[in-house]
């Protein structure tokens, strides 16, 4: 909420040079409490600890301390959130969003965009929770009613906020790419997603005559944010989320056609002229690990602005300083927020009623060092394949959201890493459709710095990168009995050689190419099967066979059965009591497939 102190008096609209601080959070994903994680190099640069060490980070009570400090220091402050408040920890599984909204309310957020994961359990939960618990507006300008859904009763397209005489229009943009339902009509959410640029331009045209500044808070992702800026005119700042990106510096994009036509289409598809401006796009990370502090210097004095400045735009951004503020374990917790959330805190590891699943002696990364397969990805895909008794497993890379830090792994830690309540299913997929899916995965990886967008088991995959045309993926999905040491040994089959199993000196096996005419039983998630992330062509729900309620559930079931870590293992737990517990628990390490084995690799074109 806005800080009430000092001039100007209420009722006076400010002119001339003013400062406004925007505090930006995004994708907090039910991470209300501090969590242990390995500090990465970029985390270290942002002040979360030394690279490689395991530290606590995040937590709403610490976030509250920092946000309140920022509010106390500046005259004009707004806190805006880019959505995906729900889903991502055991807290959401247990309490269905209640503590998340209580927490945001306590943080004093001024407005929030609607994220795709808010809709994971349907519209009714969103309506009930926001109606009863949210003392702040929920925004989605690009959602339009379709049927008698309740969602638009608890959300608005935009809101006008007063920052001590500065009128700030805030437009929210909900996600359009990750909620397959929003494209079906009728759908159980009761809303349809429309083109974000058209919706935002419509809102801009209503707001521009009456506000000084327009901030668009989105849950679209960076590419879509760029597209949004390029196709609109009048946005001053974009605060984005969805992809969990952390931009250390704002990305500046040209609006009004992106420097080309200097024309845009309005909400009605009518072309009109405009003057291009540079618009900052800011992504401030996820999981309340960092938040963005955006100091804006604004001015509406014509003599201080370029001749091309549009008077209708009110104040223009003439200066911007972005700082990512770390929410580290060095920050004190705000006692009132800590007390508010305490009833929702999961049992600490080692507590009598906690349920540790396994011991993780070394960190398990979800992203491979070379962009290919990863230890956590391989383990997850193996488990999915075995649980479904499938020929192969294909999981989305976005199913895994955190590395597993070394130490005891409990259900809460597992859900943080594999958060989504997305059923694991098996389905029969024709080879040709599977090949097309991998082609799409290859092109998607090509647009993401050659990082795989899938995890697989039961197949070897070679992605060309960069690659935008056809034949970007080679898939070998039939394991043969032919032993091999190198790919040359499989030349007769046209296949490639799999790596030998970890811990054995056996030879690998040749994998033959995917047969377009064959059928494969594939373990995957219901989200991907429904066409999510654009991987598979949507598969009818009737064709799906449920394997497990969620991937994390399948992993938990598997983890409970296994041998303890071998003698000589170095346990990271400092507490002797926890070390004893760690010795007795099943071990999650390379012997269980949690290792990079080169099943997914990138090749130069």
């Amino acid at each position: 909420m806005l800080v009430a102190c000092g001039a100007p008096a209420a009722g006076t609209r400010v002119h001339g040079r003013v400062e406004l601080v925007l505090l930006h959070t995004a994708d907090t994903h039910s991470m209300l409490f501090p969590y242990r994680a390995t500090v990465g190099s970029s985390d270290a640069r942002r002040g979360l600890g030394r690279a490689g060490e395991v530290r606590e980070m995040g937590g709403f009570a610490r976030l509250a301390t920092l946000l309140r400090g920022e509010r106390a220091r500046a005259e004009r402050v707004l806190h805006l959130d880019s959505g995906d408040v729900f889903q991502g920890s055991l807290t959401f599984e247990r309490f269905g969003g209640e503590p998340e909204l209580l927490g945001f309310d306590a943080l004093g957020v001024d407005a929030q965009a609607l994220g795709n994961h808010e809709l994971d359990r349907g519209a009714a939960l969103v309506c009930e929770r926001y109606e009863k618990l949210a003392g702040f507006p929920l925004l989605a300008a690009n959602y339009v009613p379709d049927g008698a859904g309740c969602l638009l009763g608890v959300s608005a397209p935009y809101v006008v906020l007063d920052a001590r005489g500065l009128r700030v229009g805030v437009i929210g943009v909900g996600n359009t790419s990750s909620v397959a339902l929003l494209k079906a009509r009728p759908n159980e959410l009761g809303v349809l997603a429309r083109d974000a640029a058209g919706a935002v331009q419509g809102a801009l045209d209503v707001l521009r005559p009456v506000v000084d500044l327009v901030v668009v808070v989105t849950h679209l992702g960076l590419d879509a944010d760029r597209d949004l800026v390029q196709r609109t005119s009048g946005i001053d700042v974009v605060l984005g989320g969805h992809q969990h990106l952390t931009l250390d510096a704002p990305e500046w994009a040209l609006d009004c056609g992106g420097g080309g036509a200097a024309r845009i289409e309005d909400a009605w598809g009518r072309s009109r002229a405009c003057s291009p401006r540079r618009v900052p796009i800011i992504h401030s990370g996820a999981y309340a690990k960092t938040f963005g502090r955006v100091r804006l210097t604004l001015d509406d004095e014509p003599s201080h602005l370029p001749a091309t400045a549009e008077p209708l735009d009110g104040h223009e951004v003439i200066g911007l300083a972005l700082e990512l503020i770390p929410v580290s374990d060095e920050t004190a917790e705000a006692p009132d927020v800590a007390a508010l959330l305490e009833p929702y805190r999961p049992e600490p590891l080692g507590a009598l009623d906690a349920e540790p699943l396994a011991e993780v002696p070394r960190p398990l990364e979800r992203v491979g060092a070379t962009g290919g397969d990863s230890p956590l990805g391989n383990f997850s895909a193996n488990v999915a394949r075995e649980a479904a008794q499938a020929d192969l497993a294909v999981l989305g890379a976005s199913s895994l959201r955190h590395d597993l830090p070394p130490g005891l792994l409990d259900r809460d830690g597992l859900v943080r890493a594999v958060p989504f309540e997305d059923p694991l299913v098996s389905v029969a997929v024709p080879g040709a459709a599977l090949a097309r899916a991998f082609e799409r995965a290859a092109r998607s990886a090509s647009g993401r710095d050659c990082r795989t967008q899938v995890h697989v088991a039961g197949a070897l995959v070679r992605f060309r990168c960069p690659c935008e045309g056809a034949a970007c993926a080679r898939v070998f999905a039939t394991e043969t009995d032919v032993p091999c040491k190198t790919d040359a040994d499989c030349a007769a089959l046209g296949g490639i050689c799999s790596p030998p199993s970890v811990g054995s000196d056996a030879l690998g096996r040749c994998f033959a190419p995917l047969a377009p005419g064959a059928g494969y039983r594939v373990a995957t998630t219901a989200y991907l099967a429904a066409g999510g992330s654009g991987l598979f062509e949507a598969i009818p729900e009737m064709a799906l066979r449920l394997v497990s309620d969620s991937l994390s559930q399948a992993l938990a079931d598997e983890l409970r059965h296994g041998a303890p870590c071998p003698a000589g293992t170095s346990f990271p737990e400092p507490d002797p009591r926890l070390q004893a517990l760690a010795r007795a628990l099943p071990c999650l390490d390379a012997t269980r497939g949690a290792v990079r084995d080169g099943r997914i690799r990138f090749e130069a074109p």
Partner: protein
Amino acid sequence: MRPRFAAPLVALACAFTPGHAGAESNAAPRLRTSLVWIWGDDDVLHAPTDSEPPSPGPGIGDRAGYDGLFEGFASRYTGRENRSEVRLEGEAPGLLPRLTTRAGLALGLELGALGERAGPLLVADLGSFVEARWSFGAARDGRENAVTLSLLPINGDRERVGELEALAWGGAVGPRWESPYAAATGPVRAGRVELALGFARAHVGLKTASFLEPQAVGPSVSETSYGVHAGVDSRWAAPVAVALGFGHFEHGRLPGAAGSPRAATSGVSLRVSFGVGLERPRPPVAFLSDGSPFDRLTPPPKRHAFALGLEAAHLVQRLWSSDHPGESVLEPARAAAASAELRTGVLDLRAALIAREPSFVMRNAPGVLLAQSVPHDAAQAPELGILASAGLLLPAGFSPSLSAGVLWPASVTLQAVDRQGQVVGGTLIVRGPGEVEALPPGEAPVPVLDLRPALELRLSRLLEVVGWLDYRRDFNRTHLISTPEGTLERGFRSPDRLGYGVAARAVW
């Protein structure tokens, strides 16, 4: 005139229910039920590329896109909704002399889910109440003098000021978002005390609901908001009736920082009606009676009858000022309506006029900008409407009718000219609380025309049927269009809409 509140409505319904012997003598529980069956298509002309037609095809049950012009004039429900109702009422003499106690459970059921054998059954409270009534003699015309205490423990949001649906304020009988209490964190509770004495009746009522209110530090706290309303109305037998109502309803705080001003709606409503052979005029659109099957607003008229009704409301709502940041203002909102009915022989003629400022149309969910006043520079146009109908009351409950209307929609124009001389912004059509639709820059609202022939047939005291055609010409409607690229763009809807429907309702 009778105030539009649940308990009196139930009493009224009892009075007009065939075979009802009067409240005082009926101590046995009484169950009444209505069941509705609907089949129709509200938009047979829509193009196949229309991604959100009001009615994708013919079907049984409600169609989400249905919006009958003028059907919200006198009542939220016209009898055409796929809603069934169950009312269970009981009455018992009190332990004290001349004390009578009553209670009623009134539920609206959307039974479609039962038919599908899937999905939740939607149940809404329609004014369940408990009531204690102490009688103390009779007025000169024989009417009983009494004090009545009514409590609405489940859904008190139906308690409001004003009689016509289009002019009532301070509460809602329809969906939650139409109410100023939409953001309440729980149910709205209400109670009222009514004194019927001599030629007049006076009442005072209280409404409470909890709202989240931001705190300077920490999470918002749920606080109780209070609303009071009062009124006086005539209950003499003369042809003229008068009712005057006041209200002040607080509903949480304006969105913003801790200590924001209280959101409040205050105002006054006046209604005058005159009738000969008919207590008051019935609305031009009133299929299967008007409103709830048990809430018949008037008894059947005599063979020759005439009635005229006038109602006006003036209220103010506290909103953030669009022109003075950080200040709140009391935004006025005014509305007036007149209606008339003439019956002579088998001919029944009805007409209605309505005029409402945009801020009144948006009352309860105010602000083309959320919780903000209409900017001073904005041009506003009131909603103006005229509707007339002619019907024949033929023997055997056979009643053809034709109604026609024209409506100039309320609008707020927020636009400016940019540096390049282009008009930016546009006109916002204001259709109802929270229902605002933008027109493209430079476009102005166009009057909406509606023509509706209908045939109503009363088959028995239990079962009645109506069939209708509805032609609408509305140039203001927009919708989303699927583009070849697979995106949705907004464009004007075809102005012509033709719909039809058949509804059968059983009441027993």
